[in-house]
């Protein structure tokens, strides 16, 4: 339950911090920390313009996508505090819920008959598919390391401070998950939410025709997705022995650092060429495989 609350709170300020970091590094003050919250509230109050080409799929998709992300949130624990709905192998469900969200949003994009949204949909499908092996190999490796297969159990035993051997693994895992978060949330270097050019974007261009309440829901979903991965990263740092208030500080601290990292990455580098993206994502898989072999060596399963 705490996890869900933390995710919702982080979702409130995450994008704000990313944008503030970017604008400060760009020499500007930038919008307020809660600008996107205002945006969402404004969108919730608005009416909508709906394409005559579109159908029920277009209207239903943001709802399903939002619920999928919400359900994914119920799988994430908070340190030793179990998740709302933990079960064995919920790692699989987590990945598939994100896939469900992707699936319906792709369909909604294709429903409009727009070439831009088709373009975004096509890219989203491919990059989403390519990123999954890395996710599964990392969590499979962590499962080998800890002997547990659900987020709740996994994070109750694993954290950066839990022992000498697992620090390296945790650091690598944090790196991979950070990158997965960037890809899933359509940020640099795969996608750029800021350019606002129809031809170069992925996620933003898929929602070109959404407006009003639905657009608000989509924005909430993407904020929550960020917070979801933020909490996942934070879980690596939540030592079970610490009191709750300290854990909360750590969790928010990790998320703030995560947001600032995202902002910094987006300031200091350019986006990938679209055709280089698959290669980039596959590199991530190879890091995941590296984690896997490190785990095998650490657990004395692979003797060199």
């Amino acid at each position, binding site marked *: 339950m705490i996890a869900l609350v933390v995710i919702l709170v982080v979702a409130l300020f995450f994008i704000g911090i990313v944008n503030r970091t970017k604008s400060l590094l760009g020499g500007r003050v930038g919008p307020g920390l809660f600008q996107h919250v205002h945006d969402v509230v404004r969108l919730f109050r*608005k*009416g*909508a*313009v*709906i*394409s*005559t*080409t*579109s*159908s029920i*799929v277009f209207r239903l998709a943001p*709802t*399903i996508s*939002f*619920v*999928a992300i919400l*359900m994914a949130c119920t799988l994430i624990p908070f340190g030793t505090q179990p998740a709302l*709905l933990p*079960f*064995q*192998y919920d*790692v*699989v*469900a987590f*990945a*598939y*819920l994100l*896939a*469900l969200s*992707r*699936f319906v949003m*792709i*369909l909604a*994009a*294709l*429903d409009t*008959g*727009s*070439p831009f949204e*088709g373009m975004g*949909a*096509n*890219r989203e*499908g*491919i990059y*989403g*598919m*390519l990123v*999954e*092996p890395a996710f*599964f*190999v990392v969590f*499979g*490796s962590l499962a*080998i390391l800890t*002997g547990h*297969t659900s987020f709740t159990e996994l994070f109750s035993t694993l954290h950066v401070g839990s022992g000498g051997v697992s620090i390296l693994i945790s650091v690598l895992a944090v790196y991979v998950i950070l990158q997965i978060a960037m890809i899933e949330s359509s940020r640099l270097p795969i996608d750029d939410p800021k350019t606002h050019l*129809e031809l170069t974007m992925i996620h933003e261009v898929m929602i070109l025709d959404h407006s*009003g309440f639905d657009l608000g829901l989509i924005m909430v979903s993407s904020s929550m997705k960020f917070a979801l991965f933020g909490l996942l990263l934070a879980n690596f740092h939540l030592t079970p022995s610490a009191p709750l208030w300290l854990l909360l500080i750590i969790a928010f601290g990790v998320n703030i650092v995560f947001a600032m990292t995202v902002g910094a990455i987006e300031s200091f580098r350019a986006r990938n060429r679209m055709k280089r993206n698959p290669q980039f994502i596959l590199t991530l898989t190879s890091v995941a495989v590296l984690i896997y072999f490190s785990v095998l060596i650490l657990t004395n*399963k692979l003797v060199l």
Partner: protein
Amino acid sequence: MRLTFMVACVVSLVIAFVTSIPAVTVLVTGMAWSADIGSVTYVADSFSAFMVLVINTGSVLAALYGVRYLADDPDGRSLTESILHGTSFVALHAAMIGVVISSDLYSLFYFWEAMSISSFLLVLFDARQTKARTAAIRYILQMHIGAVGILVAIGFVSSAMGGVTYSLVHDYAASHQTWIVLLPLAVAFAMKAGLFPLHSWLPDTHAAAPSHVSGLMSGVMIKLGAYGLIRFGLLTDPSTELGTVLLVIGIATALFGIVNAIGQRDLKKLLAYSSVENMGLIVMSVGMAFIARGIDAPYIEIAAWSGVVLHILHHMLIKAVLFQSAGNILHGTHTRDLNNLGGLIHTMPGTVNLLLLGGLGISALPGSSGFVSEFPMYISGIKTMMMSSTSISMLGVFSVVTLCLAGGFAIIAFTKAIGIGALGTARTKAPLTAHDPHWTTRFPQWLAFGGALFIAVAPGMFIRALSGVLYGLSEKHIPHDLLTTLDTVGIGQAVLIIVVGIVWLLRMLATRTKPVAEGPTWGCGFQEGDARIQYTATTYADSTIEIMSPVTDVSVSYRHIDPADMFPRTRSYHTEEKDLIANKVFDPLAIGVERVLRALAVLQSGNMRSYILYAFVFIVVVVVLTLAEVL
């Protein structure tokens, strides 16, 4: 037409009813059924009983759909054609049951051939089209190559053991090299199951067959290939090696199938390749179960078998939904080419709704039966990763990566099928004039979907009900926490569906008073409303095909614009997606064989003197060889 098939439907229902009763009894009591008919013994253990139920469900769904589907058939058929079709349908149903209750290789061979021939006749329904004829002939040829495998096995076993009952096969395998009997049989089963690289008949045949037959073949008949592999795998005391081989073949099949599904623009071929993928996943899981048995890991084994059993059920139901939707679209628009479709959701909402639900299911997304059937496969995969042996652990990694890649590809394939085919605007006039067929066509689809939904929310219940089957396969009891996990997943799926409903209601409430304006899709101010601006089936697949070019075979016919050509003339762009194996391996092989035979035909000059010469040469050679003491 309609009347003849209605008779077939009734007969099929009767067969289903008659055979389901003993099958259910077997499942409930756990006692095998057996009967002697003449000198032949037929046996149905729990696995056979399960397969009988799968066959009956699939056949009844196909029969119910077929009645209405054929009534809407635009081409007139002669009475002979109708009767032949109906008879073949019933024969296929019966033959499939025969296959799973056979207990010796002779009857297996007999029913196997009956199954091939009856399905061949069903595929030939559209024999007036060259494509259907070619596909059907290809099919029957390849099936016979497979059937030779069974004959070879019969030869080996009967010469060594003096009989061909399954128990003798077991004894033979125990006393000889196992692969001698298993390999020829495996060729037959792999051919039927459409396993890579023997899958090439499958897409063409499924595309050519009438839709109720495609659904039946894809949902049920090819599963009998997997049945054979499991049955004979178990008979020959499966080893880890056999498991590994099956796992690898399964992985190759799954990935090859789904990548090629993305490349297809024929809706039914896309579905057929997706069937190849799902057969790959099933066989991969079978391999996993054999491996687990070899290393004595009961949890993994049970999880893998649960995956197999649930996936067979799920795929049978969902593929029926999908192929029947494809059939409705074909009847409504007279085309299967996705590049000619689009916007069907406005003209055929009933059909497209089912296509959407089926697409969610086949992509194994949460809330569907596909998710619960792939979930145990993931369990076995991740659990295998955690095993102590590095090589076994890596097999686990491969299977998990395959599952998630296949899932990711399936999302691309089915967003393509639905998004390009049914959503957006119409690319040609065909979808504009289409309309939903009579509701009775959709009745079996909703029935199948209802079944799939039931699996989705109560997988634990199914696994409990099928505990006998799982026990028969693994000789182990289901671990309690596997059941709990599956129960939780089921509840989670139900919660997901309910929460979607609640949020949707809240959204409706929140937007009730808000103004909604309608307008054209945003086109940057150049509002032309042209379907040309939409992604096509070809271009939607382009990026994936490019990344996956080593396993796909798409030829592009297009004259490139010369760099110096400033003002290019209108030109056309065409692609043709072929099967890599059929195009690069089998076709050249067939052409080579044909060429050799043609060359030999020179000998057949029709001139009596030449033949006398041949006889003379032959005698001389024999004499010389005898003298040289070679012979």
